[in-house]
């Protein structure tokens, strides 16, 4: 589904990613872990198409397309979803209308019919219940006045409604208490399927207790220095990142 080859990228003159190789197949859950500043979020942003990064080398193939050449919205329309670390507040933009606009844009791009208002309401209500997002927040402007946990739940709600092929979760666990973390993880787990892949970017192992990855990659200083199964996450939790960094340096 996603193949990243030798990806080099940075901001202006500063190199952040220094040769990333990663292959994700449908049905798999990958976790990318690493210390602060290792380039985890940069990788997530580049995949989603955020401005401001320069790719100096390498290639990213997503479902047969050169991902880096696609516009942000085209990536989303082809099933790529980024759950953001800091969901943006959109004053004056109704949460429900936004989500409907988004779903219809994606459906239209796929050649599907737009969803009618009634079916949409039903769908969103059901999904909101699943991610335990208060109905009242659906009627409010997107993320405005939401607590940290509510913002993250709202991201997961969007993901549940949009049903992406590849979902990237960028530090979705940051700032969540244990209950919120569990709800978010449950929401994510509900989306696990044979056709869908997940890329979970996180600093801590905590989230991976609830979203069990098939593969764990450790990113440090712009490179994947170790890949393994879910037991790698436990090892990191126990020993910290230090031993790996030392090993990589040696």
């Amino acid at each position, binding site marked *: 589904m996603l193949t990243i080859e030798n990806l080099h990228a940075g901001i202006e003159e500063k190199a952040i990613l220094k040769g990333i190789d990663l292959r994700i197949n449908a049905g798999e859950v990958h976790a990318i872990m690493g210390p602060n500043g290792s380039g985890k979020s940069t990788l997530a942003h580049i995949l*989603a*198409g*955020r*401005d401001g990064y320069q790719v100096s080398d390498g290639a990213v193939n997503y479902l047969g397309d050169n991902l880096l050449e696609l*516009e*942000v*919205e085209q*990536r*989303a*329309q082809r099933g790529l*979803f*980024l759950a*953001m670390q800091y*969901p*943006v*507040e*959109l*004053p*004056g*933009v109704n949460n429900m209308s*936004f989500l409907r*606009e*988004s*779903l219809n*844009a*994606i459906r239209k*791009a796929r050649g599907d019919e737009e969803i009618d208002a009634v079916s949409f309401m039903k769908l969103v209500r059901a999904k909101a219940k699943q991610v335990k997002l208060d109905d009242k927040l659906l009627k409010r*402007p997107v993320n405005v006045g939401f607590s940290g946990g509510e913002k993250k739940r709202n991201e997961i709600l*969007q993901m549940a409604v*949009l049903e992406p092929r590849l979902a990237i979760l960028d530090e979705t666990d940051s700032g969540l208490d244990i209950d919120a973390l569990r709800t978010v993880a449950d929401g994510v787990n509900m989306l696990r399927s044979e056709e869908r892949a997940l890329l979970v970017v996180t600093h801590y192992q905590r989230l991976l207790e609830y979203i069990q990855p098939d593969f764990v990659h450790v990113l440090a200083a712009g490179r994947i220095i170790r890949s393994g199964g879910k037991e790698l996450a436990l090892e990191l939790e126990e020993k910290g990142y230090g031993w790996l960094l030392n090993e990589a340096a040696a």
Partner: protein
Amino acid sequence: MNLESYRQIAQRAIQSLPSEHGDWLIEKRLAAIRQMSDLGIPDARQEAWRYTSVEGLTAKTFQFDNLVLDATFDSPELSPLNEPVAARLVFIDGIYNPALSVGDGQHGCKITSLRSAMAEGDQSVLLSVAKLSGVGDHLFTALNMATVQDGAVIKLSPGVIIEHPVELLHITTNRSDSHGRQLRHLVELDKGASVSLIERYLSISDDTDYFNNVVCEISLAEGAELRHQRLQQEGELAYHLSNVHVELGQGARYQAVNAALGGAWSRTELHNGFSGKDAELDVAGLYAAGDGQLTDFHLDVDHAVPHCTSRENFKGILYGAGRAVFDGLIQVQVDAQQSEAHLHNANLMLSTQAEVDTKPQLVILADDVKCSHGTSVGQLDQEALFYLRSRGIDAAQARRILCLGFVGEIIDKFETPSLREQINSDLLQRMRF
């Protein structure tokens, strides 16, 4: 046209007016003509006209001939309201069309046209004309007083409360091409009376070149309440000038929301004053201007008496080579203790060719007051744009959504749902970027 041509137009218009019942306004008309000479043509040396040129307007040789009802026009259902109205007064090309209008009020209220009040010599109405506005504070308001032939009259007796709104629907057809239309509305709410007023300006087509010149006088007696929704969606070539004068008596409430979306040149002057304490004024507005458009709001609020509250919030979207002017002045007089006044203007600039001149001012002479004012000029938030696009929404639509979001709090002040929908869809249509 120079000043002399405007004077001659006004003279001719007065002579051609029907006068079989005498003209109760003649003194005011003549005074207005005299005033025209004193006032002269507005120019950039006058503070109120510093950023708003009238050159485009004076370059036109608009006709101001006598209005004749076109009985053949029968399609007023241009973006109709879904909500019931207590009355609808339809003005086609500046003249009241009784056949298209509905509702003639109820007990305790007079809803009629200025033309019929003039024809009947209705003194109770005619004596009130120009009471708040004077005969004119600049050339165009004086021109209005001198030549006005029609408008709406809404008078509510004490305690009369009308549930559904009264709509003033103005439609300009291509018969108005190269014409100037003068309208004057009079709204008087006696003690404790309450009503909601909708005022809309629409054009049949975008290629009609005309000038709508409107004066509206609103006086609210003790405890009276008016909710006022104003929506200007004129054609691309239109010139539109509105002057709204509001006076609030003790404990009166005036809640207004304006939207200026159309026209090549659109200026709205809002003059508000308090004559009794404990009155509340809330005036909001939104404007959008793109290529070939200038939109201007001039607002003043005079806190002459104590214990009154005023809130003004205006938001604008400028795109293409659009231009906007906002000038807001709140004065709190020395005796107006415990006044509260808040004035805010925010602008969203979508292009480097767009321009806004904004000037919110507070002049406070009393010492025990709560006042604030602020202004901002900003651009679209790139983070927000990315967020929308990352959810599959294309860049142009994402920008439109953010623009609508920016003015959302103003649109929400339109209490009639159809109007909110019309503003939303009109904005989406206009903002072709």
